[in-house]
């Protein structure tokens, strides 16, 4: 009897402890998706990067924010996304949040003979047809160790990154050399005609002093020494600490830094925290000042109606898409079955079922594109299966269900199971359910990141793929997804072998061919052949303190905490 009572007591205690873990926060759960979507809509504001940054002049003492895990502090790599990189290091040119290129270390008072993205590029000279581009740098650049940065340091930085890290778009570089202290010559095999091509060169290499690099002893793997407005203080394995650089070269030279290069905080601490629950706790306890990236509305909603915080959001450059395996090994080799599947997917229903906070995508690319992209397309006017209004097929009405039935009848589908390859199963599960309503038998095949590419490389292993892709502009996103150079098979990653389509994409990726007509033609070709469809783009929520006046983002929407402006505390 005693043992039974002891066991019962223990069970009650465990149950009680488990129940204590229930949070009675006002946040909505993902299962009440429409409420979460409505709630976040009421509690947040859209971030508008076209609005000028309001400079209050107030320098905040300290902020801490969460970041990705940094495994190495090296300034060079395939993604340059070590926390603090954009505060400590600088490049020849950088892009703002709207993907407009601007000179940083490049001397804006020289050059300008080269027309790039429709405008003269300050600091750069180029003679048509030579493949040679000369970039001029300021003569007054110093790093945080006091070393004078010259053109040979620029050449060193580029050559080191080229020789030791694989960087996209650098294969055509023949040489990078210093002509004198302030002139760097870039020589390519041919003219850099690709869309965003020079951005991939000039805006993808942080510049360091060769002397500093050599004397560091660890090739700057464990420390950061650059030319930027912030100095590296320490890295203890989970937090990077930066301090305002009082000797920033632009200030010493009497220049007025751009808003992105402002230093409006004395000390910044990047804390590497992986779980959103920990981030929420950090914000609640004050150990974190802001969170620049919540992907779930539920998490951001925790701080709705909280006077200490404000919530803002912006659409990410990521696109979520559904690809069809066009290989003969898959039933989706049949174009009619592909069309049936794409018309069967209800994007609005998918968005609602998975949290309600995505933005609908009409094409395989978001409208937050690079130069000119965003102004061209009225995506909602383009047929993307979900926007079908009828009339294209004789005898078939405007109801999408009828269109699905029509194409299913035309296809040779016999009820085979279609495997939906994905890394996150939420969307794929909903899609499988939607397909089942039309008698299309689908099963989710969720794999981890390391297995995804291997599985995709075997066309017998999957039929549909729910994936995510990013790019600086729409044509680059398409290139990543449907270029044939990266697969090594001569076909696209979803096994499309269509030379006409490939040629159109190559044309869209040239400076001259990057026109509205060509882009629409490529997309229409994809729709006509049902190769792929866009699903949605993700919104990212930022929880920022209520005294932050202006949010500043840089290239690839990187949050620049030091550049944000703050309201002075009330006296």
């Amino acid at each position, binding site marked *: 009897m005693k043992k039974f009572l002891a066991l019962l007591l223990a069970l009650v205690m465990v149950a009680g402890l488990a129940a204590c873990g229930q949070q009675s926060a006002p946040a909505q759960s993902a299962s009440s998706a429409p409420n979460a979507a409505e709630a976040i809509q009421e509690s947040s504001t859209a971030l508008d990067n076209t609005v000028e940054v309001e400079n209050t002049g107030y320098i905040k003492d300290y902020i801490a924010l969460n970041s990705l895990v940094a495994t190495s502090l090296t300034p060079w790599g395939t993604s340059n996304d070590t926390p603090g990189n954009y505060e400590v290091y600088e490049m020849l040119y950088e892009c703002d949040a709207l993907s407009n290129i601007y000179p940083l270390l490049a001397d804006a008072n020289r050059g300008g003979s080269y027309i790039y993205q429709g405008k003269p590029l300050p600091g750069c000279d180029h003679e048509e047809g030579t493949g040679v581009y000369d970039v001029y740098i300021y003569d007054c650049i110093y790093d945080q160790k006091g070393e004078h940065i010259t053109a040979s340091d620029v050449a060193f930085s580029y050559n080191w990154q080229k020789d030791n890290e*694989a960087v996209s778009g650098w294969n055509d570089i023949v040489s990078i050399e210093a002509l004198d202290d302030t002139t760097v010559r870039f020589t390519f095999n041919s003219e850099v005609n690709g869309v965003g091509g020079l951005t991939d060169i000039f805006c993808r290499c942080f510049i360091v002093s060769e002397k500093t690099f050599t004397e560091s002893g660890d090739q700057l793997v464990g420390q950061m020494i650059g030319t930027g407005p912030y100095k590296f203080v320490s890295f*203890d394995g*989970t937090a990077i600490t930066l301090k305002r650089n009082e000797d920033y070269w632009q200030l010493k030279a009497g220049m007025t830094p751009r808003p992105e290069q402002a230093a409006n905080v004395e000390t910044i601490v990047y804390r590497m925290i992986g779980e959103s629950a920990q981030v929420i706790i950090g914000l609640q306890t004050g*150990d974190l000042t802001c969170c620049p990236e919540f992907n779930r509305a539920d998490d951001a909603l925790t701080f709705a109606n909280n006077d200490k915080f404000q919530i803002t959001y912006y659409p990410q450059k990521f696109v979520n898409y559904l690809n069809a395996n066009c290989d003969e090994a898959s039933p989706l080799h049949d174009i009619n079955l592909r069309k049936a599947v794409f018309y069967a997917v209800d994007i609005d229903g998918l968005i609602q079922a998975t949290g309600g906070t995505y933005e609908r995508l009409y094409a395989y690319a978001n409208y937050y594109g690079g130069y000119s992209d965003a102004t061209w397309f009225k995506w909602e006017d383009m047929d993307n299966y979900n926007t079908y209004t009828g009339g294209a097929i004789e005898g078939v009405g405007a109801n999408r269900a009828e269109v699905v039935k029509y194409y299913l009848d035309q296809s040779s589908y016999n009820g085979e199971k279609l495997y939906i390859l994905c890394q996150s199963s939420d969307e794929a599960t909903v899609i499988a359910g939607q397909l089942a309503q039309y008698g299309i038998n689908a099963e989710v095949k969720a794999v981890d990141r390391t297995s995804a590419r291997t599985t995709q490389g075997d066309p017998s292993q999957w039929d549909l793929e729910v994936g995510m892709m990013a790019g600086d502009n729409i044509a680059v996103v398409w290139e990543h997804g449907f270029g044939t150079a990266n697969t*090594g098979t001569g076909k696209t990653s979803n096994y499309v072998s269509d030379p006409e389509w490939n040629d159109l994409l190559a044309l869209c990726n040239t400076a001259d061919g990057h026109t509205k007509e060509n882009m629409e033609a490529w997309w229409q070709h994809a729709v006509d052949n049902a190769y792929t469809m866009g699903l949605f783009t993700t919104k990212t929520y930022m929880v920022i303190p209520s005294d932050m006046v202006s949010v500043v983002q840089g290239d690839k929407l990187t949050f620049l905490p030091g550049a944000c402006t703050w309201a002075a505390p009330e006296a």
Partner: protein
Amino acid sequence: MWRYIVKRLIALVIVLLCVAVIIFCVLWFMPGDPAEIILGMSVPEADREALRIKMGWNDPFLLQLGRYMRDVFLHLDFGDSYQYKVPVSQGFMERLPRTLTLGLISVFIQTVIGIPLGVSAAIHRNTLQDQGLLVFAMVFISVPQFWFALMMVVLFSVKLGWLPPFGIGSWKHWIMPIIANSISGIAMNARQTRSAVLETIRSDFVTTARAKGLPEGKVIYKHMLPNALIPVINGLGMQLSMCVGGTVVIESVFSFPGVGNYMLNGINGLDYPVVRGCVLILAAVSAVMTLVVDLVYGFLDPRIKAQYVNYAAKKGAKKAA
């Protein structure tokens, strides 16, 4: 006895060789391409192939295995981490002090609190004290470590604001990780000690000691406890070997930059050198701890020591014969 130790050391080397081969094979056959993980898919296939050739990943399996075994066992070179870009041994040693501190303090607390609790419960068996310990042990052996850690964070950081929720820095950052890491060990030690003492308490020599009129304290601590501790030491040995590799969960919850986090990042990033190096080092630590525990057995219990010595002597005699 020395012969026994030498034989165990030789066996340890063989174990490590087998572990190295197994972990190499497991990672070799796992799906995933390190070149894709490192470079991503936005670079041409030619670049990924160039990296594979440069790193020797296209070489035959046996060649890669031989190269790996030679580097590790002849040069103690575990290779360079793909992500961290520093030698694995350097990355491991940078993090080891923090993890060891966390682990050793936890083991110390588990021993200092757990064993006396168990002894007390056994001596006062069937009382409220004993029942309370049993409930405590059942609860904290059953409750998942990460959940308990998170609850501590909610209580002490969010609600009370006494302690920082993550990271390292001051001594306050260590309190919750140590407690969370220790609690289940305390419960386990207490239970094991209680069971062991209960068995010993009924022994003839204990009755004899009491019959001789020895004070109760002497009966417990001089006669009973050394015999009762033998099974407990086995558990302690396991806890010591978990010092280095068993703190992954705690380090993850508290964003603690230790060996566990290092290994976890290596697994997530398909960083083969880090995974292989960590597994091998942890296997070595575990094997050494097992040997130490066996030797401590021999020190505590002369019968076991005699077994070791006799076994070695018998082996020697057989050979001579």
